[in-house]
């Protein structure tokens, strides 16, 4: 598969794992500019591992990762960050004792326009501008998720990796996150998503990919799937 | 290769013949190894099995040694009768050392606290000259067993070997039982263990007391072997030694404790063999530990476990 010009992220035959435990056994996928792609799969199918390998927390043993036709295979997280890949991890990994302001500003400490970033983040999350001085560890899960996404946006990333953005959130927050994701897409942010909430995932994304046993086994466009998710559920779990 | 666990009996049987081939110097080194096997086994209960970073081991060791020394010199008891009381004194100290852990002091806080406890005990040995001989040290009479004097290193060897085999087997049984599994559960996730209904507090106390008991017996043997106790023997260098034994051998592994004590006790003697290395012991020791941690992070026992799965400790998973 040769990288085509429209692709933002191109992964080819990725093999990776922890020690002797191989998790990814040849994953190939592509995310185009301005697109939202969702990775679906059962627990342990390797979804988060894909994100961690892209952002450099895990070194692949085989395969390549290209961002805008440039290889970012196996380089450490701080370099993938500079290249423009920013991950919002499942655990969020926020700076708990620091304030919302400090967390957001740290998002742009290495790269990015701080003022522009703050303006953007407060547009998406007006609620955060009210909580500017609040210590992050005292906030609710949904608000923390907003800070995490906001922090990731501070560096104006080329590719945003979102690991279960709706995980453990109340329905109203899930809805809000969904709406914001759509708005970010409208603003041209490219995203690769890992999501358990099928409804949300299919609602916001352009395409979906199904991962099982460390391989992409199915995928397609979400356009003509209105209402009939059973096939997908069957592919994921059976 | 299929091996039966009964091969563990071969080692003590093999070493029975050691006095025939060793001179008294090498026999002394072997005896010292036996002492440190108990130290390692005891230390490992708290550090390896329970997963707590407690450096109180040296305190147990010293208390055991001094208990034996004081009972023989002050009360005139024969040495063999003081072994169990020395263990009990160690166990008592273990209970005391578990108090911070019971109060929720963990990790590195626990480490420096128990470090301070050990140093405080050393201070106490110095400040109670009436009992311990103070800084001049306490000369312990030649050990006796049932009226027999252990005059040579060979005599001491058989008695020590008997004690070590009994204690190690008992510890092994205990760690394979429900108690050992509870330790393991606490090590892996304390909150989950508590949620499963394991009374974690009791097991903390038990582990520390057990560790103190085993190490206290080791201390008693040390008193019999060395014959002169001085407070400086139980300082922070000893902490490093104990720590190195279990890390080099393999955390939470009985076989590891044995291998570790053999290696750590024998290394200085190997260096001693090369006279031109005189005075280099410290840095060689430091560098060797660094190398082992870097390249063999799970210790020597992990090497053995690769050779044959029988050497894998059944009560330890990482």
């Amino acid at each position: 598969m040769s990288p085509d010009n429209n692709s933002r992220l191109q992964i080819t035959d990725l093999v990776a794992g922890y020690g002797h435990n191989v998790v990814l056994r040849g994953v190939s996928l592509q995310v185009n500019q301005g697109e939202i792609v969702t990775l679906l799969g059962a627990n342990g199918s390797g979804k988060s591992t894909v994100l961690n390998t892209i952002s450099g927390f895990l070194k692949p043993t085989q395969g390549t990762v290209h961002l805008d036709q440039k290889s970012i295979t196996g380089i450490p997280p701080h370099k993938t960050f500079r290249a423009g890949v920013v991950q919002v991890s499942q655990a969020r990994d926020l700076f708990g004792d620091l304030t919302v302001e400090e967390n957001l500003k740290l998002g742009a400490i290495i790269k990015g326009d701080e003022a522009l970033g703050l303006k953007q983040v407060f547009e998406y999350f007006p609620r955060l501008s009210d909580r500017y001085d609040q210590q992050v560890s005292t906030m609710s899960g949904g608000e923390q998720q907003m800070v995490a996404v906001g922090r990731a946006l501070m560096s104006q990333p080329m590719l945003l990796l979102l690991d279960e953005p709706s995980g453990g959130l109340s329905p109203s927050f899930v809805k809000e996150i969904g709406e914001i994701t759509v708005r970010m897409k409208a603003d041209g942010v490219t995203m690769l998503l890992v999501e358990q909430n099928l409804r949300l995932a299919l609602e916001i994304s352009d395409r979906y990919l199904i991962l099982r046993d460390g391989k992409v086994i199915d995928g397609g466009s979400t356009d003509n799937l209105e209402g009939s998710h059973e096939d997908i559920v069957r592919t994921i779990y059976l | 290769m299929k091996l039966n666990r009964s091969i563990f009996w071969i080692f003590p049987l093999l070493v029975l013949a050691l006095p025939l081939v060793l001179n008294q110097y090498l026999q002394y080194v072997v005896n010292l190894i036996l002492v440190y096997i108990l130290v390692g086994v005891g230390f490992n209960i708290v550090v390896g099995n329970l997963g707590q970073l407690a450096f109180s081991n040296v305190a147990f060791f010293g208390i055991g040694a001094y208990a034996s020394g004081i009972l023989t010199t002050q009360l005139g008891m024969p040495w063999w009768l003081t072994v169990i009381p020395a263990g009990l004194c160690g166990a008592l100290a273990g209970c005391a050392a578990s108090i911070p852990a019971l109060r929720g002091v963990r990790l590195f806080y626990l480490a420096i606290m128990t470090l301070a406890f050990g140093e405080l005990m050393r201070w106490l040995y110095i400040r109670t000259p009436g009992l311990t001989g103070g800084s001049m040290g306490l000369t312990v009479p030649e050990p006796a067993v049932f009226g027999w004097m252990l005059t040579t290193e060979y005599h001491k060897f058989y008695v020590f070997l008997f004690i070590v085999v009994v204690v190690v087997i008992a510890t092994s049984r205990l760690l394979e039982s429900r108690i050992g599994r509870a330790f393991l559960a606490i090590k892996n996730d304390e909150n989950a263990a508590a949620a499963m209904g394991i009374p974690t507090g009791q097991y903390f106390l038990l582990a520390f007391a057990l560790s103190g008991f085993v190490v206290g017996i080791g201390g008693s043997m040390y008193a019999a072997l060395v014959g002169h106790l001085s407070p400086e023997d139980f300082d922070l260098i000893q902490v490093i030694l104990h720590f190195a034994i279990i890390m080099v051998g393999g955390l939470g592994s009985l076989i590891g404790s044995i291998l570790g004590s053999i290696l750590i006790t024998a290394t200085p003697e190997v260096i001693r063999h090369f006279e031109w290395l005189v005075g280099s012991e410290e840095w060689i020791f430091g560098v060797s530990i660094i190398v082992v941690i870097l390249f063999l992070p799970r210790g020597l026992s992990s090497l053995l476990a690769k050779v044959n799965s029988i050497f894998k400790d059944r009560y330890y998973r990482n």
Partner: protein
Amino acid sequence: MNALQKSLKTAAIAIAIASVSGFAAAAERGITDTSIKIGNIGPFSGKAAMFNPLNYGSVAYMRYVNDMGGVFGRKFDVVLGDTACAQAKGIAAAKKMIYDEKVFMITVNPCSGVAMAIKPTLVKEGMPWSGVSANPKITGSVGSGGTSAPPKYMFHVTPNGYFSGMTMGKFIMTKPNTKKIAIVAHTNDWARGYCDPAIDYIESQGAEVVLDTAMERGSTDATAQVLQIKTKGVDGVLGCLYQPELVVLLKAAHKYKLNTPIIGALGADFGQVVQQVGNAKAVNGVFFQGHLYKDKIGSPALEWGKQILLKYLTKDELPKTGDPTHFYYFGLFNGIGVVEGFRRAGRDLTRDTYIKAIETLSDYDNNISAGRVTITPQQHVGVSDMYFNGLDKDGNEVIFSSWGKALH
């Protein structure tokens, strides 16, 4: 190797040796016609390594004797052993010397704890031991801090802690109107080995030890000690301290204007202490340091010793900076006595003849120590007096035999 092979080999060696020498001496371990094997043990590593020069001083003298042709054609084969000043390691070092190296005798051994721990083995094996450790219990007879006859094979050529400590007491008591004494000591056997006999002596003279304070190794400040001493109003201070802490004590004493004499034990080098205090006024008339030699270190009378040390020790064995310190001469002192024993024992050397020879040392002038060496079957400590370094009014180093009285 089975027992039969072993005994055959031993027999073969015995025959070989016997055929060469033809003397009974061949049966004695550690000696041949051309060599005497000596075990030289001490803190080559560990926290008392600053006493290591004691080992090298003895080594230097034996190398010198070897260079002069040895004793009756026998040259010293010195084996070094590290005790790290810790019992368990020290016992290993000593047992290796006895059972593995099969040395004729063990010497130097500065650490009392190790000496006490190996004493039973030495006594059992009849292994001669000439040490420099302080604890009077090691070789002490009734007259030198012990409680019974001295162990047959163990002796000090040098004074032990009992005599040195007592001399510290004697020295301060010769100062007129001395009634109250304070002690500052490390909490180890070395320090107690000096200070306890001193306390006994002082109390036997009707004076009072009003304060016995501790100063830990590594202390950087002696404010508490000095202020306590000051509030007690004492007439003299005995400092059983190693060099760094002694310097700290002297600095603090000067800072708080404690104008009381401070007497140091044998744990420091006088010249270095004066230099390290960095202020002659802080030392002059105040500080007196135990001294064993017939003249000042670096004086012409001891030049021969310095030459031996410089010639026979390698660069690694000598100090990194400056001349050999007091401890090197202390080692020489021990080495000379040990070698003199071999000279007196004659050609037919056995352990028994060696000890008998040592016990003939009487008023022996070794050309290094101030006191003459006398060892008798009842008394295994060679020298029973000590002198004191101090500065005179002009700031020159002087050796005092008692308060205000110079040796020369």
